[in-house]
């Protein structure tokens, strides 16, 4: 098949956060240290130019996964390879070339920009840091970037507090693109925006992808957004991937019961005659189990309408019942 390695390859990524409960617990015999299993063995790849949507509810580990991919936090175990190079354990000073190629767009437009820096200087910073251009050439590049995200040059000297949420997000995108990355991690990048602005920014992200050949790791809880922007979708639940498939396939034929429940719970625009909220069969009962004390078998078993005895004993592995469509569920052995 293809000889070049995928742009990003993540293997068995694990991140456990220690829980500092009772300090005396360290001396208690037999007690194992308690950890939050934020990410518990996640593997996926992203090809050049591809958008992988990472979706799940709060606590599923999608944000942590995004941070791990960026090497913003260090994994407990596992392997991250970018452009074929293992970057899992690279020390900070050797990460600089990597930092140029992988960037982030944050969720909150109001706190992702330094309030004391003008737009121009914020966007110029990565250019300076990576010594891409100097002086006039750098200024030209900044103008070019602002133009790419739909901001006129009069925004160069504005401060973030003078801009709206949508405009700030555009600045954040320009800043992310300044060093010429190949992969952008979008961490709930449109969740904090109003509906009409959200649509503008999503259109922009898609345009930029076409123009610049960017790959995205698009983290979101909003399935509608994920559907619009992703080529492939990965669904997470409590630190594990439960289903990975091409977008159209996932939405047409969701296999994992959790994916099915997620899709059923989304209030899409209806006709007003019936309400999905009147249909008890669509609703998922129960709450998420504690991410510290996980059940032994499948993590979704406690809420799954198709629960079998095997589900409480053995954790299902990610398998492919159909080509390119992976599911971790005993219904698909």
């Amino acid at each position, binding site marked *: 098949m293809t000889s070049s390695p995928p742009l990003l390859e993540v293997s068995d990524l694990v991140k456990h956060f220690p829980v500092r409960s009772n300090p005396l617990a360290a001396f208690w015999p037999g007690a194992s240290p308690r950890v939050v299993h934020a990410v518990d063995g996640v593997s996926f790849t992203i090809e050049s130019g591809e958008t992988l949507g990472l979706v799940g509810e709060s606590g599923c580990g999608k944000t942590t996964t995004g941070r791990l991919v960026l090497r913003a936090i260090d994994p407990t175990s596992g392997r991250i390879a970018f452009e074929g190079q293992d970057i899992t354990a690279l020390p900070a000073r050797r*990460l600089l070339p990597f930092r140029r190629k992988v*960037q*982030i767009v944050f969720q909150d437009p109001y706190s*992702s920009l*330094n309030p004391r820096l003008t737009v121009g200087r914020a966007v110029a*910073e990565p250019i300076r840091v990576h010594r891409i251009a100097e002086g006039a050439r750098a200024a030209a590049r900044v103008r070019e970037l602002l133009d790419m995200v739909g901001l*006129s040059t009069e925004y160069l000297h504005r401060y973030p507090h003078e801009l*709206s949420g949508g*405009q700030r997000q555009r600045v954040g995108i320009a*800043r992310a693109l300044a060093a010429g990355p190949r992969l952008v991690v979008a961490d709930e990048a449109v969740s904090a925006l109003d509906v009409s602005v959200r649509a503008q920014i999503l259109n922009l992200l898609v345009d930029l992808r076409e123009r610049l050949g960017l790959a995205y790791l698009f983290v979101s809880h909003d399935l509608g957004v994920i559907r619009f922007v992703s080529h492939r979708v990965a669904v997470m639940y409590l630190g594990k991937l439960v289903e990975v498939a091409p977008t159209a396939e996932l939405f047409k034929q969701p296999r994992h019961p959790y994916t099915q429940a997620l899709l059923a719970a989304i209030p899409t625009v209806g006709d007003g005659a019936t309400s999905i909220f009147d249909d008890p069969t669509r609703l998922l009962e129960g709450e998420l189990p504690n991410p510290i004390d996980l059940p032994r078998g499948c993590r979704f078993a406690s809420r799954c309408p198709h629960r079998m005895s095997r589900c409480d004993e053995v954790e299902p592995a990610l398998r492919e019942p159909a080509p390119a469509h992976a599911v971790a569920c005993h219904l698909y052995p």
Partner: protein
Amino acid sequence: MAEPLSADDRPLTAGDPGAGAAGAEVPAAARGGLRRGWRRFRRNPGAVFGLAVFLVIVAMAVLAPVLAPYDPIAQGVGKPFERPSTAHWAGTDSFGRDIMSRIIYGARVALVVGIVAVLLAMIIGVTLGLISGYYGGIVDTVIMRIMDGLFAFPIIILAIAMMAVMGFGVRNVIVAVAVGFIAPFARVTRGDVLAVKEEPYIEAARLAGVGSLAIIFRHVLPNVLAPIIVQGALRVSGAIITESGLSFLGLGPPPPTPAWGRMIAEGQSFIVMAPHVSTIPGIALMLAIVALNLLGDGVRDTLDPRMRR
């Protein structure tokens, strides 16, 4: 007057810009900020009074040679212990020196010591706070424990101890006073640094490859500066009190340099016979302190809603 709130509780900015590419009106928010700040400040009577008195003191200090009716160290320009009169507005002291002129020149010492000491303390304290807050860990612990030690001393005791070691002179007074104020600046800075450190734009800078030092001075420092400046304004009065205390005890700038604290001390023995010798410099000192405190409060109140972002 409270600013009107939009439905999601964010203050409305004047002239919200229009669409990105569609061009926008230049918002007045930038210029309006300063003007609106002044308007708010203006409405605070205490702050305005404080500012007025402060400006008078500055004028006295700067224009002392012009304003002072007599040479402040010249003895015998009047009879000793003259009551306040048209010739000598504040009377004369035991050496026949004109008290008014001495008060005017005394403002120099007060201001120079007050402001320079605070600036010095600010530079050192803020740097320590930045390092402590940003790096955390053992560095933070060590620095903060040293600061705790400094905190334990009343400033005046600390200053006396330092003067005893260093000797007299205005420069040493400044250093002694400054040392007492390093710890508060370090504490305040560290606290704000801890908060700012968690903001996404700091992480963005780190992920862009910006180095630690650059992050501290380019991203963290400008965003913690506002409360520090307010602290500085409020501390100047404390510095002046400390200096006056030192000179009252005879540890301030050596005679014959006029210093309000020493003037008060000099009139102690004659308090019954010629109360004006101690009292009038005392009133001057009191006015200065009250005014500076009101000014500092006014600055803080003006800046506060902005700081609460």
